[in-house]
């Protein structure tokens, strides 16, 4: 009883502090100094722990993919080949135009820093931490990809770690276009909405465009390559739905990258 009585003022003070922190962070859009402090404190710890735990995580994933592991590997290879095909198609058709537009010339404009995922975000957010930071040249709003396709974009970076917002996060929006027809649209993550799948949602901008299942999507690119560089394969259209009330078509897109088993990723650093 005495303990409870002594605790009550402390509880009230702590609650007020928490509310103040929430308010400050809300005002700063989720990038208040508290996050910087936390990254400085916990970043090195996570780096060490991530290095220690990586083999176990890999083992988990190996166990998780059961007897159909071979099929999955073949599928991944197929996806990779398809992505390469799309890339070549894009680069063939629009190389000159893209280079002129964005002052980039294919892959020569990029430098890729590799890093590995060491930690992942909580229940509702799709964010990961990678073990490379500003010391390696990483800055916020840079594209993150892996061998399969687009992964996400860097939202915050400390000296040794960086936080990546995955493309599946509900707050992430990627500008994409179809590799064949060049129709542009916006790709939004679905977050934790659907069980077991990391599907993305595509909404085309043009009302006359026709979308077919099986079409492949690449990033449209942003000015200066931030936050997304152009031409990175994203995914493949699964199903097309045209809702009665909406002007444009929407579609579900299956991403090329496997977001549940992210390991080594590359961060595209523009010169």
């Amino acid at each position, binding site marked *: 009883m005495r303990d409870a009585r*002594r605790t009550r003022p402390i509880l009230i003070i*702590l609650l007020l502090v*928490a509310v103040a922190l929430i308010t400050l962070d809300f005002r700063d859009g989720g990038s208040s100094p508290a996050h910087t402090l936390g990254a400085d404190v916990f970043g090195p710890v996570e780096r060490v722990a991530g290095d220690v735990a990586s083999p176990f995580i890999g083992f988990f994933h190996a166990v998780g993919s059961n007897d159909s592991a071979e099929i999955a590997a073949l599928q991944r290879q197929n996806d990779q080949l398809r992505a390469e095909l799309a890339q070549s198609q894009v680069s063939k058709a629009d190389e000159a135009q893209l280079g002129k537009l964005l002052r980039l010339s294919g892959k020569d404009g990029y430098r890729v820093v590799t890093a590995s*995922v060491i930690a992942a975000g909580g*229940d509702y957010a799709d964010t990961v931490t990678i073990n490379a930071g500003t010391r390696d040249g990483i800055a916020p709003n840079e594209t993150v990809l892996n061998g399969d396709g687009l992964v996400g974009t860097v939202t915050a970076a400390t000296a040794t770690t960086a936080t990546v917002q995955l493309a599946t996060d509900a707050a992430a929006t990627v500008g994409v276009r179809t590799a064949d027809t060049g129709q542009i649209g916006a790709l939004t993550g679905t*977050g934790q909405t659907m069980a077991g799948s990391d599907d993305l949602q595509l909404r085309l901008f043009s009302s006359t465009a026709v979308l077919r299942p099986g079409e492949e999507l690449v990033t449209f690119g942003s000015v200066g390559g931030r936050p997304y560089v152009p031409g990175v394969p994203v995914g493949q259209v699964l199903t097309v739905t045209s809702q009665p009330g909406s002007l444009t078509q929407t579609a579900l897109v299956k991403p090329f990258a496997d977001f549940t088993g992210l390991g080594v990723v590359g961060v595209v650093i523009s010169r």
Partner: protein
Amino acid sequence: MTPVRKVIRVAAAPLFLVLAVVGQLVVINRAPLPGGGAPDLVLLVVTALAVTSGPMAGTLAGFAGGLALDIAPPGGHLAGEYALIFCLVGYACGRIMTAVEETTGERPAATALTVMAVGAAVGEAGKAALGRMVSDPSVTGQAIRHVLPGAVVYDVLLCAFVLWLVSAAVRRPAPERAPRPEFAQAYGVAAAFRLASAGAAPRLRLAGSTPPPVRPPARAEPKLRLSGVRSPALSRTHAASSLAQPALPGGRAVKLNFAGSGRGNPLDGASALPPGRSPGRGWLRGSRTAAAVAAPRRTSPGRGWLRAQPPRPAAATAPRRTSPGRGWLRAQPPRPAAVAAPRRTSPPKGWLRADRLMAASAPPRTSPGKGWLRPARTASAASSWRPKSPSRGWLRPARPAPAPRRASPRRGWLRPARPPKGNWYTRGPSGRWLRRGRRPWRSPRLLLSQLVGGRR
């Protein structure tokens, strides 16, 4: 407590929190778990610390752990969200556990687990609710429906493990306990007696229920009356005994031996007293004479239908016979006559007593409402042997507080069948509880204590 142990206790909580935060971010969130959600190690550690160490530790651990989870790199939500929720959950868990301990005097592991599981579930729900409140784009209704059940299930599954780990590290030394009373043998005897009389429950009646109809006495009542016959129970007894045994010529009262077989029953007239009619005096007491159960006493046939009483020397039994009305199923050690003798002059107690025998010498009954089912006890004579009585101690809750309540039949659970009418001069039941303090209903604790019984 060794110094190493002390260091472990002090450092355990921060260590557990840091380990939980890192493990959550590095391992749990990355592991491909089936189902929507993932367990929250930090929330589990916070609730476990609160349950084991109290509300203060729970509050501080909740704030620290939640804030660490908020600002550690991957983040994904506003700083302070989890600190707020975990702080509240830690305080609530510790407070509930403290309240349970204050009420029952112990902290059972099952209760701790339950509090912890409920706290973890509430914490998960609180995280989702606060995410909605700050309009986090990731926290949609669909996402909550997808994530929350899995997270709660994982938390509940991991509760026992985390609680075991944390309590093993921060456990305080167990408080000194009284040695176990040596009633093991007597306990077995009492259980056997209870089994034997299973079908013959004594006539206990809840207060307020209507008493069975009392048949009017068929014959003239004996001349000798009790001085204080006001209780219906007593008058019934009177009538019944007059049915059973006619008064001896000369108006002399019959010496009643109540546990005997010739006793009348108020309900079926002159039939024998069924074994279940228990006089209020320790009819199921199994105490020290466990070995003597098998020796029913035949030398005094009027007493004890199934008494477990060892044959005693006549010097010891002689005074006993003049104090009837004590258990028909008594297993009580022989006491010296000096102890038993003053009981004779004690005011009448119990249901079926030879009150007429003592009517001449007994003091007037100042408390007419003494129950027929009361543990008869005189303050002076009982105090010497009361601790030996098994009705206190090994068959009762650890806290002996409710015991004095039974002394007053007005407030007990087992009241006399019809409470005595109080008038202005005698002690009436009217408004008595109101006099126990100013505005007792204002304090829930006081009100509860008055509803349950006397103030401790």
